[in-house]
């Protein structure tokens, strides 16, 4: 409600405030959110936080290659998490890698959400032909595992950041479309849609201004889970050497680089990027799990 509400209870009336209060009730979810925000900040400000620019060859010294964590460099500062085979500081490398992993994960999830939501809404609103076509494509897509679809696309198109994002969008849109359609099918039968239709509003306005906002809460939950999945899938593809090119290494590629040294006991090159990946995915999942409880009206007390 607005500021004209009774001054004693303005806090409880606002749905957003209520949502924040309910979300904050879970310490685990708050912790997950805090960790994720920290990771995002680290990734965004990698230039300032990282002690060296890992892709500026002038700053690297091959003599520093494969040093264990805590070693001193030739230039004098300490490598907190050791160095890789090129003498790069692993900590700086991870910050830059996180940046690419997050950008690809979040970016593809946003694109996929736009495509999938639009198609799902249209399928639910118009039904008949459009519904049949969209849902058949979704069924076909979901009958193949995500890794296989991504593999096909990257095998045909070749590897680059754009193609990875494209592959992730193609893998993910179907999930959004199916879920959004299911929600919108229920909402479409409600009175407010009928009322909007009686006012002879154009369909675009009904779909995007009336139907869409009411489908948003479940959509947010799906989007959170999909971001985590996209980051994991991107890391897997990069680990297989099909993802981002070697000039823009994400966490997955850093792990792949360290793989051959791991067998000789130099664990840190693979271990720490893997740990960063793990913490990122788990923190997003913690937030997502709790969001699902908060936003699901059936679980409301």
């Amino acid at each position: 409600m607005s500021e004209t509400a009774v001054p004693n209870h303005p806090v409880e009336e606002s749905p957003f405030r209520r949502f924040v209060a309910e979300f904050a009730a879970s310490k685990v979810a708050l912790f997950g959110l805090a960790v994720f925000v920290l990771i995002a900040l680290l990734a965004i400000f990698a230039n300032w936080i990282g002690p060296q620019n890992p892709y500026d060859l002038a700053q690297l010294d091959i003599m520093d290659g494969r040093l264990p964590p805590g070693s001193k460099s030739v230039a004098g500062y300490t490598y907190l998490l050791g160095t890789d085979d090129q003498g790069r500081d692993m900590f700086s490398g991870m910050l830059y890698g996180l940046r690419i992993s997050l950008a690809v994960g979040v970016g593809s999830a946003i694109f996929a959400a736009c495509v999938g939501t639009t198609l799902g809404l249209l399928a639910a609103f118009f039904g008949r032909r459009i519904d049949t076509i969209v849902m058949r494509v979704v069924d076909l897509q979901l009958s193949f595992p995500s890794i296989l679809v991504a593999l096909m696309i990257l095998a045909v198109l070749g590897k680059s950041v754009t193609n990875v994002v494209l592959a992730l969008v193609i893998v993910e849109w179907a999930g959004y479309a199916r879920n959004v359609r299911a929600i919108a099918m229920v909402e479409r039968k409600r009175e407010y849609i009928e009322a909007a239709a009686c006012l002879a509003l154009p369909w675009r306005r009904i779909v995007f201004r009336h139907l869409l906002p009411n489908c948003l809460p479940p959509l947010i939950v799906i989007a959170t889970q999909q971001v985590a999945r996209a980051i994991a899938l991107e890391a897997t593809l990069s680990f297989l050497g099909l993802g981002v090119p070697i000039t823009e290494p994400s966490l997955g590629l850093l792990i792949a680089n360290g793989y051959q040294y791991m067998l000789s006991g130099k664990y840190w090159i693979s271990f720490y990027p893997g740990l960063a990946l793990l913490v990122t995915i788990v923190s997003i999942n913690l937030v997502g799990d709790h969001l699902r409880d908060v936003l699901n009206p059936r679980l409301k007390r």
Partner: protein
Amino acid sequence: MFTWLLRRLFQACFVVLAMTIIVFIGVHVIGNPVDILISPEADQAERAKIIAEMGLDRPLWQQYAYFLGGALHGDLGRSFVFNEPALKLIGGRMPATLELAVTAVLMSMCFGIPLGLYAGLKPNGILGRVIMSGSILGFSLPSFWVGLMLIMTFAVQLGWLPSTGRGETAEILGVRWSFLTWDGLRHMAMPALNLSLYNISLVLRLTRAGVRETLPMDYIKFARAKGLSPARVIFVHVLKNIMIPVVTVLGLELGTTIAFAVVTESVFAWPGMGKLIIDSINVLDRPVIVAYLMMIVLIFITINLVVDILYTVLDPRVRLETKA
């Protein structure tokens, strides 16, 4: 039933046809077929000869007919790297992948069902909660990372298990299998566990949900009232009813497991189809890529068809007429 089967088969053929078109477009229209199908080492005269031979100067629909004709005869080109027919190469690697995937699915039952049963019977116990939290990790951890950690722990630090390869194999019916020798089993333990981790979590959750659902049922109460031992109630009356959905889901998951074997095989250098496709993509051995894609689509459509048919046979409640 017969018309339904016919319609379903027709649909499957249609999907295969659609996939050949997509792969054909991918190879011939988006990429340059001359680069893709002819080895980069060929000189100018050889190139011209092969282009004329393969009909790459002809109109597109004729080229597609040529490609489709080759595919129907099981001819999808020769590998540049191994200089062998691509399909034969993949066929040779398939047993390794199948044995890994089947072992992983069996392992997921061996671990998933007992753990799920325990978590379902004692949902509020500490161990029950630990199992459930563990299953969330099984879903969300990237499998290649788990594989690396397994290697680091059991191969590098403890030295209990070999880290890569397939080990000794024994031959049956002209095909080499690892599971017949002790050394092969030792090599298979880690990759199979890695591949089954997702399925273990899945089976565990299905079993737990099934137990929670079945326990309050009247026939369970009746079995108890009859004085049957708790073990008999759980293992005969409860478990029997849970097995139907678990087995159905695992059947469907077999295809996904074969696809995800790509990751596990790369981590453990397991010489199956998945390792082959990744290596082929990295050296641009395109006939093998095309053959693999066609092959895996065929496997998938077959699995989906068989599961659909089995489902309708096993569960008479699924009415085929209404499904149309």
